[in-house]
């Protein structure tokens, strides 16, 4: 797996840092919270202060505690939904791409249908029919979100599998008589990993958005604190018009930060897949260190070496970089 080195661009480092921080918060957040998020014993509508870092709601709840506690529900649902959706998209996408024929036609139609139905409205309809008890269940919500979020990954994975199936090195292993399973797992699968990782990140990103949206319009249980519920309460108490920015800015910024972190990681994967993007994504300092011209030159894709003295490591060209 040596060839799977992700270029250490500042974007990737920053992305890893942000995502890592929030994963840590998911684990320890509820223990760090200074107060019970439901505790209404404080003075209402306090601005940020030493006692209440993010102020209090109009019910007198501590917003900092709500943000910390809410991290867990938000992230857990997003991760559950992202994982289930990725399993779905791998099964459908790889099967469609590898088997071809009628299976491909059927599965492609299925994913195209799910791509075309707008996901969030469908989620809202399904969720509105859920009994109130299930709305607080992370697994139930995660499964529903994943149902609307798997199709994109399936489509990308199918295209990648199809293009890999006919590559010379796969053809060669077939000719020397390697078993189907071995071809699948040792030849095709490693080359799918970057696409898979990118689709996982994208799905988690989508799931956070979908979950927060559901919570924001009041379709998840309001007894479970997540960043969407916080925004729901802020909106229904007219916080934006009352200038209570400290109420809705913390959850919103957290959502945006997690999203940015995931998107930055995705950038890294894109640059790994597509050497032209890798070169364009470098800062001028990195460029100088690698001995590349300061400005990228027209029509040329220079080989970016892991470190200059050693011979270039050949990356397997995949995705949009290969034609």
């Amino acid at each position: 797996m040596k060839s799977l080195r992700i270029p250490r661009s500042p974007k990737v480092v920053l992305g890893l840092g942000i995502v890592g921080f929030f994963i840590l918060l998911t684990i320890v957040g509820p223990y760090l919270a200074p107060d019970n998020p439901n505790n209404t014993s404080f003075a209402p509508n306090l601005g940020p202060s030493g006692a209440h870092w993010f102020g209090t709601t109009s019910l007198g709840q501590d917003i900092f505690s709500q943000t910390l506690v809410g991290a867990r529900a938000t992230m857990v649902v997003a991760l559950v939904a992202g994982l289930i959706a990725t399993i779905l998209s791998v099964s459908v996408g790889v099967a469609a791409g590898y088997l071809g024929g009628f299976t491909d036609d059927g599965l492609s139609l299925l994913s195209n249908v799910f791509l075309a139905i707008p996901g969030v409205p469908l989620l809202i309809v399904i969720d509105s029919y859920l009994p109130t008890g299930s709305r607080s269940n992370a697994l139930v919500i995660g499964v529903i979100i994943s149902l609307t979020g798997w199709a994109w990954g399936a489509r990308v994975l199918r295209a990648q599998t199809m293009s890999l199936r006919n590559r010379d090195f796969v053809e060669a292993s077939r000719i020397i008589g390697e078993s189907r399973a071995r071809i699948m797992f040792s030849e095709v699968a490693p080359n799918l990993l970057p696409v898979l990782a990118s689709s996982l990140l994208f799905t988690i990103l989508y799931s956070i958005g979908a979950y927060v949206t559901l919570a924001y319009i009041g379709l998840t249980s309001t007894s479970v604190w997540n960043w969407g519920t916080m925004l729901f309460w802020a909106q229904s108490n007219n916080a934006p018009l009352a200038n209570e920015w400290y109420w809705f800015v913390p959850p919103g910024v957290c959502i945006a930060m997690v999203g940015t972190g995931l998107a930055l990681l995705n950038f890294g994967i894109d640059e790994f897949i597509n050497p032209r993007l890798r070169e364009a994504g470098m800062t001028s300092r990195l460029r100088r260190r690698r001995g590349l011209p300061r400005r990228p030159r027209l029509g040329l894709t220079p080989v970016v070496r892991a470190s200059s003295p050693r011979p270039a490591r050949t990356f397997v060209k995949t995705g949009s970089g290969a034609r």
Partner: protein
Amino acid sequence: MTVIARRLGVYLVTAWVAITVNFLLPHFMPGNPIQTLIGKLQDNVTPAEIRSIQLSFGGTLNHGLLSQYLTYWGQLFHGNMGISITLSAPVSTILGSAIPWTVGLIGLSTILSFFLGTFLGALLGWTRGSRLDSLIPTATFFQAVPYFFLGTVMLLIFGSQLHWFPELGAYSISVTPGWHWNFIASLIRYGELPVISIVLSSVAGWMLGMRNMMITMVAEDFVLMSVAMGLPRRKVVWAAARNAVLPSIANLSLAIGLVVSGALLVELVFNYPGVGDLLLNAVLNEDYPLIQGIFLVITLTVLAANLIADLAYFALDPRTRTAAVL
């Protein structure tokens, strides 16, 4: 032609799936929502209205599922989507008055954001490695912000703090709606902030996609060739951009659903009288006929938009006319 027929086929199947899901959901959800709903209604609405709501779910529950399904289709063809419980008016009428607002607001913002994003993306792709690249992290951040959150922040800063824009609604309550200048001016004035928030949230996606395609395109032989031939820079960029924009347009039909889903919520923030605002109230009041009608209308509209985007793609890319690319 066959490619277009195939896409059309996919959309027809999608429409059928959406309608069928819409029919099946209330029948199979735990706790029998239809029974509960009708039980709740008994003393609130007239028997005729109860009858209409039942019909919109496929008639009385004593019939078999298939017969209910057929009744449901029959009602849909007559434009009967039942009666809203909270608003006591036919769902189709309510939707009819909300849709123009949403199509106007979201349609306009999507078109604006697509063109702006594509232009900026082409610029970023061409001048890659320059200072302009610092726009990328900012754009990524805006891409990750939920639409409604950005809308809320904009409302707070530019509406209730700076008073640069009016705060809520689609037009000033002091003007009467109609085709006269006062109303149109007020419409534009009240639409500015929602449009700006939707464009800001969605522009980054188009921009980053276009930048990546442009970078790939600039390394193509034909670009090098046209530079070597001494074509003016303007023409070279145009040629590269024209080719780079194709995947963006191919993705347009996929992205519309996502953009619409996000933008609907902006209506909640600004109390814009469109479908999104309606949806929130329907959800809060458990107004199932209305929720289902809204879902159906959004889905069918998005499918129609997808079809238009696909047709644009076929018109622009001659290759699709011969081979089944999609």
